[in-house]
C-alpha cells in the first residue's frame, strides 16, 4: 500500500490521530487529575506532571464533576470562526464553573437560540459530535447543555 505513495505527505496543521488518542479520557469523560499530596484538582489532566501548589509529583486520575454553572458567555461571531461546524453557527461558548470548582471553556449545545443561555444557568456535560476534521473523521468530545 505504502509503495503507491512514494512521496511523503506532510500535513501543515496540529491534528493527528496520536494527539487525539492521548487526550481521549479527558475529552470524552472529563477525566482530570488530583494531587495525592495536597489534594488540588486539575483539568486538563496533569498525569506525570508536577503539582504547581506543593511541587509533589504524585498525580492521580480524578473524575471531574459533570455539571456546573455558566459564569461567562460569548458568541463565535467575530473574526474567523473555526471551520468544520456546518450549519451549527454561530456557536455559543461559555466558561463553566463545575461543581468541584474546576473551570472549563466549552461549547453550549442544543440551544434553540443563543439568548436561551444566561449567566448563572445550570449546565451538564454531554458527549457530542463537534465537527469534521479535514480527514473526514468526526471529532467527538465534551459539550454542555442546559439542565432543564
Amino acid at each position, binding site marked *: 500500500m505504502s509503495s503507491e505513495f512514494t512521496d511523503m505527505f506532510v500535513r501543515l496543521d496540529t491534528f493527528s490521530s496520536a494527539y487525539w488518542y492521548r487526550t481521549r479520557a479527558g*475529552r470524552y469523560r472529563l477525566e482530570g487529575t488530583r494531587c495525592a499530596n495536597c489534594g488540588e484538582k486539575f483539568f486538563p489532566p496533569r498525569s506525570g506532571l508536577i503539582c504547581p501548589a506543593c511541587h509533589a509529583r504524585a498525580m492521580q486520575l480524578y473524575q471531574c464533576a459533570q455539571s456546573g454553572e455558566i459564569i461567562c458567555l*460569548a458568541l*463565535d461571531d467575530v473574526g474567523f470562526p*473555526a471551520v468544520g461546524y456546518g450549519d451549527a453557527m454561530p456557536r455559543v461558548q461559555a*466558561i463553566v464553573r463545575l461543581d468541584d470548582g*474546576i473551570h*472549563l*471553556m466549552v461549547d453550549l449545545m442544543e440551544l434553540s437560540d443563543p439568548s436561551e443561555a444566561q449567566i448563572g444557568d445550570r449546565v451538564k456535560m454531554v458527549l457530542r459530535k463537534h465537527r469534521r476534521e479535514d480527514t473526514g473523521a468526526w471529532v467527538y468530545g*465534551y459539550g454542555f447543555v442546559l439542565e432543564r
Partner: protein
Amino acid sequence: MGKILRRVMMVGGAITPPRIPMDWTWRQMACEVFWNALQEAGIAIKEVDLVACNYNDRAIVDSSPGPQIADALGILPKPVVPIANACAGNGIASYVAWNAIASGRCDVVVSMGFARSDNYDAMEAMNSQGNYVDYDYMMGLTHINYSSMRDAYYRGKYDVPLQAAGEWAYRCNWYARRNPLAANYDKPMPVLEELCADTPEADRDRQATNRGGVASAMIFVGEDIAHKYTDKPVYFDVAYAFRPPYIGNFFNYPVESMRPYDLAEFPGLMSAAQEAYEIAGIGSKDINMVQVHDLTAYEGMMALEAIGLCEIGKAKEYVLSGGMTLDSRCPINTYGGGPAFGHGSAGSDFQAGVLENFWQLQGRCGDRQVQNPKVGVNTSYGTHHSLDVIGVVQKGWQE
C-alpha cells in the same frame, strides 16, 4: 535575584514600514531591520556579539532557524538564540540580550523578531497560538474565541462601557495619523460615535488591524560603552512572567500570586512589572508614557491596571477622562496601538512599544511627541497572556 554587573542601554532600532513588498522573504525582512538599526547607530556587523531573535514557529518551515538567521545576517560564526513564543517572544529575546550584557559576557547584542505569517494560510497557522492545544483548540475553541470570552468577562466583571473601548480605539487612531510607521497612517480617521456603537462592525473596528509581514530590531550595549554610539542612549530593562496556558486555569490556580485573580486580570504582567520596576529603580508613579500591545481595547485597559497605572477595574475611568491624550500625566499608545499601528505578532508586538518609547525619549516623534518624558513603559503578551512582558526605558543622558 543575582548580582547585576552593569546597566543595559539601548542605542538604536528599526522596524519595517507597513505593506512591505510581497516578495520579501523572512530572511530579507530580518536583514532590513538589522542593517538599518546598525547603520543608524554606526555599529559594524563585526561588533555584534550575539543576536536573539523571535519568530512565528508555525509560519516558517525552518525547524532550526538559528544558523539560517546567523547566515542571513552575515554574523557567522557568532551565535543566534532563536525564540518561538508567540507575539511577545521578543520580550524573551530582549531578556536574553539584557542578561548577556548585564553579566558582562557580551558588549553589543541585537534583539529582533520577524513575522511572515502569510507563508501559510494565516489563520490556520495562527489560530492555535495562545491556546492549550490538547483541549481548547482541538475542541474548536480558537485564538479569536479566547479574546471574545476574555473581553466579555472583563466587561461584565468591571462594568466597562462600550464608550471606553470606543475612546481607546479613537485615541489609537489619532496617534496613528501622526506616525508614518502605523498601518492606519494614511487611512481616513474613524468617527468616535461609530467606534462606540454596539454593532459587529464597530466591534471589529475596535480591535487590532493587521500589519502583515513585519520585522524589527533593537540594539543593546553596556552602559560603559553606550556613549560611543549615541549621545542619547536610553536605559533599558525587561522582565516577563507566565501563567497557565489553559483558559480554565485562569481561575483559582493554586499559586499564591495567581489565586486571587481570574480572566479579568493579568497576574503574570503584575509579577513582571514588579520585577522590572525593581531592576529599573522606578515606581508606577514615575511613568510618563505607556505603550501596550492591545489586540482589543479591553485588554489594553487590563494592561494599564496590571502595571499599576490604574486600580484594578478602573482603567475605564482613566480612558474616559482623557488619560490617553498628550495632555494627560501619562499618555497611552502614542505609537497607535493594536487598533491603528497594527498587530505585528512576533515581528513587532513587543518591539514597537520599546521603539516608540526610545524615540519619544529622544524627542523624535513630531506631532505625537510627549512633553519631556523621562520614563516609558511598554507591555506585550503572547499565548493569550500566558506570557506577559514589560519593558522599561529611561532617559540616559543629561540635558
